């Protein structure tokens, strides 16, 4: 089977933007087309990763709107909604479209417009993904994080400070990302003294509410050099998607994300590698605790040892396994439908040697995009072409 290559990539600045979702999608989409050297009507398929444009701003039908704005007719279009992992699911759909032979050129654009809503309103839109028996108790995604963080710290005897160090690390990485919402370092005292949001987690343990968009262009590897004559492309060597329980309290071990375990096993097998072969990773640090859980469930570290890796600097940009060189969701921001696409954008930049001051030595990179509280997950592995 011909593998699938990524030959174009872009992302808008993340943060508080004046643009609405349609404009954000068009901005990233046009830039990715330009990066790949193609026009909209060259596309066979056009996917949009988006969780809630209807709920946030009353704009539905975004794929067709984007096809209009990019003159991409008659491309087949579809919206991919998998909550916070809509971006990863979009990568999966785009990969499928090319790998199956249904499309010779596919573009994926992920985007969300959120900041015009209050934090309370945005939190409720996101919490609406929960089961009715959870929603009626006023549960939010941050409260799931607080519940899990308390259990993790208790079970694995991890210090509260270790969670804070995830925020410190990712903010430091974000300084060098021109697209990041926050390009400012924070120190540990600031994190630990910030207001409590979901005890024991505090404000700086959480990602912000964000507007933004990111885009990728896919084609068969056999023709990748037509779009990237300098060989500046990446190949999807492995990809896997999986789900865990919708009801979070039904999980046998609340500190394990089964969807991360299962999706990564598929991705590793497809790529013919193991976790030790990954050079750089983008994890879904919507909350600091998630970086521990995913780094363990992806097999990078033993269960209950992820916090030690952060303490020892293993996941720093100059460590043995740099995690979230982009600044992660924590610093870069989390425009729901865009995040999974932007994770792959960062890995694309890393394995093609175009990450600028964030560059690490990387031939193989992994992105893990999580929806809900681990309810649905896509893990993607990229290899550089050179």
């Amino acid at each position: 089977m011909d593998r699938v290559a990524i030959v174009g990539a872009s992302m808008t600045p993340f943060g508080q933007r004046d643009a609405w979702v349609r404009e954000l999608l068009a901005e990233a989409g046009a830039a990715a087309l330009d990066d790949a050297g193609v026009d909209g009507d060259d596309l066979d398929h056009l996917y949009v990763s988006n969780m809630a444009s209807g709920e946030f701003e009353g704009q539905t039908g975004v794929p067709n709107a984007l096809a209009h704005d990019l003159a991409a007719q008659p491309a087949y279009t579809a919206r991919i909604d998998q909550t916070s992992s809509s971006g990863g699911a979009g990568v999966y759909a785009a990969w499928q479209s090319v790998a199956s032979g249904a499309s010779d050129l596919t573009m994926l654009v992920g985007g969300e417009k959120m900041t015009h809503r209050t934090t309370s309103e945005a939190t409720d839109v996101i919490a609406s993904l929960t089961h009715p028996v959870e929603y009626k108790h006023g549960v939010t995604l941050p409260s799931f994080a607080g519940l899990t963080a308390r259990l993790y710290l208790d079970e694995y005897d991890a210090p509260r400070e270790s969670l804070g160090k995830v925020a410190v690390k990712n903010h430091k990485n974000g300084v060098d990302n021109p697209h990041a919402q926050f390009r400012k370092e924070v120190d540990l005292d600031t994190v630990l003294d910030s207001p409590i949001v979901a005890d024991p987690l505090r404000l700086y343990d959480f990602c912000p509410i964000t507007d933004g968009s990111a885009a990728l262009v896919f084609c068969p590897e056999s023709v990748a050099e037509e779009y990237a004559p300098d060989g500046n492309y990446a190949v999807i060597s492995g990809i896997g998607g999986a789900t865990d329980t919708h009801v979070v309290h039904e999980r046998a071990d609340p500190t394990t994300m089964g969807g991360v375990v299962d999706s990564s096993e598929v991705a590793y097998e497809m790529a013919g590698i193991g976790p030790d072969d990954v050079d750089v990773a983008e994890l879904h640090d919507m909350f600091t605790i998630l970086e521990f859980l995913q780094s363990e469930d992806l097999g990078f570290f033993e269960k209950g040892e992820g916090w030690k890796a952060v303490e020892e600097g293993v996941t720093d940009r100059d460590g043995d396994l740099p995690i979230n060189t982009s600044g992660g969701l924590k610093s870069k921001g989390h425009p729901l439908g865009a995040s999974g696409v932007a994770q792959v954008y960062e890995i694309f930049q890393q394995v093609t040697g175009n990450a600028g001051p964030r560059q690490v030595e990387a031939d193989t990179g992994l992105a893990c995009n999580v929806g809900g509280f681990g309810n649905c997950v896509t893990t993607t592995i990229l290899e550089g072409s050179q």
Partner: protein
Amino acid sequence: MSDTESGETGAGDEPTFEAAEYADGTVTYPPHTVGPNGSERVGTVDLREREARVVTWTTSTATPPGVREPNTLAIVEFEMGDGYDGPPVRALGQIAPRDGADGGGEDGDGEDAEQFDVEIGDRVEPVYADELREPGAGIREPESQGWDGFRFRPV
């Protein structure tokens, strides 16, 4: 979507805390349309009379519209007896206010209603509340689900 907790009543007037029992002996809360491993549902277990232990808890200080603030939540695991060897039966729920009020939402408890303190491992029991959050204040359609349910208070 129906909310099976409040859809039936037990021996008294109080709704049941309904979990489902399946042919393979597994009990789940909430009930599933299809049981684990495809097992057929064969009965109902009322969790109302059972004690549970706190697996973990948090106090949320940034709550959505219509939800009390702060909102202490816990995942609890029910004591199912020596004869049960299925997976743990757990629930996520609010911790009850100290004043015993069973009303819900911002109006029912009063925003300043103090909630019980709990720690991991504490024994708790369910206590019925006729409204856990204010229907219609959030994004979900009020008629799409029930809004009553069971909080937990220390034994």
